[in-house]
Each structure stands twice: as structure tokens, then as C-alpha cells.
């Protein structure tokens, strides 16, 4: 223990049978990386920081939006528009200034993930799309990192601990044993489409934190090789034992190089029909302030649009510059409605269905005509 105040801070958990000063020292010595500071990540981070996990990393490239706040309880209204990883770190340092918290204000990618994982003992998956979940799973298998998985859908949540004994070269199950191949993003609804009661990720994220604390301290039994499902409406719990499979192991990239070359977004993308909207719907949408409108024409193209606020991101740059889109709804337009369709496809590849995206049918020309007639 560093000092008396540390002792006092952790006293209520240290007096627990089986925990003690030893358990606290184990927490202080541990490092946990939380990927996704959202509905699951926020509660997990709050409890891990408060419990005194000595080193915590937070990965998230997203920014706080108003429709996050009902479940991402670490953030306040003042945080809207700010990066989640950085903002979470600021709040957590107030909760516990005695621990080291590092924020990585970026999305997990095949480029950065292996490096990010390498300096942490336990990884928590708090992400919200299959592309990233499969990428994290595979990276953790490759790096032999324990992965505490959590996910929610409407009124149900899942928790599991993967790769527990990989380090000991023993068989250990992972997400691919349950679901070998990623579903296409449009097969399964995400929170934005399906809705979620804020308290559910709160519970599942808290369970991820408690599983993590149990793994670190050796308390109790963890959900190793088990998947727990909780239903918030019926309070029913269901646990199943997972068997490690040889056939699914082959689906995971076998080398770091192969991992870096895997296109996870593509694995989850089926040729989704792009949502097209007409000039009338577009006219309604641009009057809302919680959307991003994007002009994907080249900067010199006319007609010039000065009737409403929008981003100018030419189609060729959309894959690298989509980071400036902060809202959950994105409306893309171009001259005639073709490039905007392509842009929505490209954005879907990058973002899965994290955002709702529309393409303006007939392009800005159609809207200008509509306005003239109006």
C-alpha cells in the first residue's frame, strides 16, 4: 500500500474474506485494456478504476453524443462532442488519482491493435459491432491475452471469459468457438437500430469488471469457457459451457502479419442496399442539428451549397477523413446521387452499422429543384 489514504480507499474490499491486502496488491499490479468506452466500457472502467486496478488503458475513437448519455453514465452533457477515451480518462482520474490511466483516442484497427494489447494483461471488449469484436477476439487469441467479453441486444446481455489458459498452452475457448463466422452487419441489429435499456449494458459492463477483478485476485469462479446470458425483463440467467474447437481455430489468422492483412469490416459487410432518401426527406433531415451532412463532390464543383451546414469530403478522401463525422446519423450528397451511394458503401465498410447513413437520391440538383418549387 502506498500510504494510509490508499489503505482507507480500498479498506472495504480489503476486509473481504479471501481478498485482503494481497488482493489489493494484485489489483494494483494488474493492467487492463478496455476497448470501447461506451455502454459496457463506462461502468467497467468506473468499477475497475475505483477498485484500484493499477494500470488502465482506454481505446475509443468515437465522441460523446447526446443519445449515448442514457447508458454511458461516465459522461455528462458537457462532454458531448469530446473524444470518449480522453473524456473517460479525465473523469476516472478524479475517481481515483492513484492509478495510471492512458487514453488511446483511436478506433481499434488491425494496424494498432496488436501493439495496444501487448502492454496489458487483460482485455475487455466493450465495442458495439461484429467487425471489431471478431478482430479483438482474433488478436487476443494470437497474443494469448485473456479476453473478458460482453455484449447486449435489447433486453439481453452476454458475458464470457476467453483464452484463459492459452498462456499455459492449454486449450481454451474463444468467441469463434461459439460463432465461427461473423454475421453480416445487417443480419443482427445493433443498439442504434434495436434500442437498449441503459441499465442493461450497465449490468453487463459491471459483470465484465467483476469477472476481471476475480481473474486478477483469484476470487471465486469466473466464466472461463462459459457464456452467461442475462435477461433483464425476466431476470433469467442461462449459462452454457463452451468447448474449444479445432476447426474454428483455423479461422483465426495464425500470424501477426496475416492478422494485419485481414479485412474485418469486409467480413461483416454484405452488399447492403444503400438507404436512399428523396429531396423532401433530405430537406427535413438537414433541419435537424444532430446529424452530419456530407458533400462528397470535389471542392470546385457547382452548384455551391450554402443553405445549410455540411462537411466537404470528396469521395476519394472519405475513407481517411470520416473521423470528422461525430453524429450517429450521416446524410451524404453529391451532384446526382451516384457518388453519395458509393460513399455510404465505403463508410459502411469502415463503420459497420455504427451510424445510420443516407444517400440523397438525385443529388443536390434534385434538392435545389425541390426548393425552387417549394
Amino acid at each position, binding site marked *: 500500500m502506498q500510504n494510509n489514504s490508499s489503505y482507507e480507499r480500498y479498506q472495504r474490499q480489503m476486509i473481504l474474506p479471501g481478498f485482503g491486502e494481497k488482493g489489493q496488491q494484485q489489483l494494483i499490479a494488474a493492467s487492463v485494456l478496455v476497448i470501447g468506452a461506451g455502454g459496457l466500457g463506462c461502468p467497467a472502467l468506473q468499477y475497475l478504476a475505483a477498485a484500484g486496478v493499477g494500470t488502465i488503458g482506454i481505446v475509443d475513437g468515437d465522441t460523446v453524443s447526446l443519445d449515448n448519455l442514457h447508458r454511458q453514465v461516465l459522461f455528462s452533457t458537457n462532454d458531448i462532442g469530446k473524444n470518449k477515451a480522453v473524456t473517460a480518462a479525465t473523469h476516472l482520474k478524479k475517481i481515483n488519482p492513484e492509478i495510471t490511466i492512458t487514453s488511446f483516442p483511436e478506433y481499434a484497427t488491425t494496424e494498432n491493435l496488436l501493439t495496444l494489447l501487448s502492454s496489458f494483461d487483460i482485455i475487455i471488449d466493450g465495442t458495439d459491432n461484429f467487425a471489431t469484436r471478431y478482430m479483438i477476439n482474433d488478436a487476443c487469441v494470437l497474443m494469448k491475452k485473456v479476453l473478458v467479453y460482453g455484449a447486449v441486444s*435489447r433486453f439481453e446481455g452476454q458475458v464470457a471469459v476467453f483464452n484463459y489458459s492459452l498462456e499455459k498452452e492449454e486449450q481454451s475457448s474463444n468467441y469463434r468457438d461459439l460463432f465461427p463466422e461473423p454475421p453480416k452487419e445487417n443480419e443482427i441489429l445493433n443498439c442504434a437500430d434495436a434500442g437498449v435499456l441503459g441499465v442493461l449494458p450497465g449490468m453487463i459492463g459491471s459483470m465484465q469488471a467483476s469477472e476481471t477483478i476475480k481473474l486478477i485476485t483469484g476470487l471465486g469462479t469466473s466464466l472461463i469457457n462459459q457464456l452467461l446470458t442475462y435477461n433483464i425483463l425476466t431476470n433469467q440467467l442461462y449459462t452454457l459451457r463452451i468447448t474449444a474447437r479445432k476447426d474454428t481455430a483455423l479461422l483465426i489468422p495464425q500470424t501477426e502479419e496475416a492478422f494485419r492483412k485481414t479485412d474485418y469490416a469486409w467480413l461483416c459487410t454484405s452488399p447492403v442496399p444503400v438507404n436512399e432518401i428523396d429531396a423532401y426527406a433530405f430537406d427535413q433531415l438537414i433541419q435537424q442539428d444532430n446529424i452530419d451532412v456530407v458533400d462528397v463532390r470535389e471542392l470546385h464543383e457547382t452548384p455551391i451549397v450554402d443553405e445549410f451546414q455540411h462537411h466537404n469530403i470528396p469521395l476519394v478522401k472519405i475513407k481517411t477523413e470520416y473521423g470528422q463525422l461525430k453524429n450517429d446519423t450521416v446524410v451524404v450528397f453529391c451532384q446526382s446521387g451516384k457518388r453519395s451511394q458509393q460513399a455510404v458503401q465505403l463508410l459502411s465498410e469502415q463503420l459497420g452499422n455504427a451510424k445510420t447513413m443516407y444517400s440523397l437520391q438525385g443529388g443536390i440538383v434534385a434538392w435545389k429543384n425541390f426548393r425552387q418549387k417549394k
Partner: protein
Amino acid sequence: MKMKILLFGQLAETVGSKELEVEGRVDTASLIAELHQQFPALAQSKYVIAVNQEMIAGNTILSENSIVALLPPFSGG
């Protein structure tokens, strides 16, 4: 021979119930084939099958009072 089928997540909506009772199915393959016939949308869904809380990867013999669970993947967070 009676057995229970538990459906999770969207699968419960597909089938219209969280729980079904069936009779006389000898193994998971025939049970699933019948479910797919009865609920074609189920055949389009991804899920893992567990018998008596044990994940199964291949066809599995069922017995009296077996509980078969179908669980879809969740992505939300």
C-alpha cells in the same frame, strides 16, 4: 419423449416465443431441421446450440427432458 427449446435474443422474436416444447425428436439435427421448416427465418439466422447447457458442434442425441437452447450473437455495447 418431451423436451424444451429455449430461444434467446432475436430468435425468440423469429419464433414468437422464448420457449417451445416438442416431443419425439431423437437428435438435434432432426429437431433443427423441423424448426427450420416451421420457422424459415430461423434458417437464415446465426446461432449456437446448447444441449443441457453444453455447447454442441455436431449432431447430438437427445433424451427425455433435454433442454435445447438456441443463442444468437449480440453486437451491442
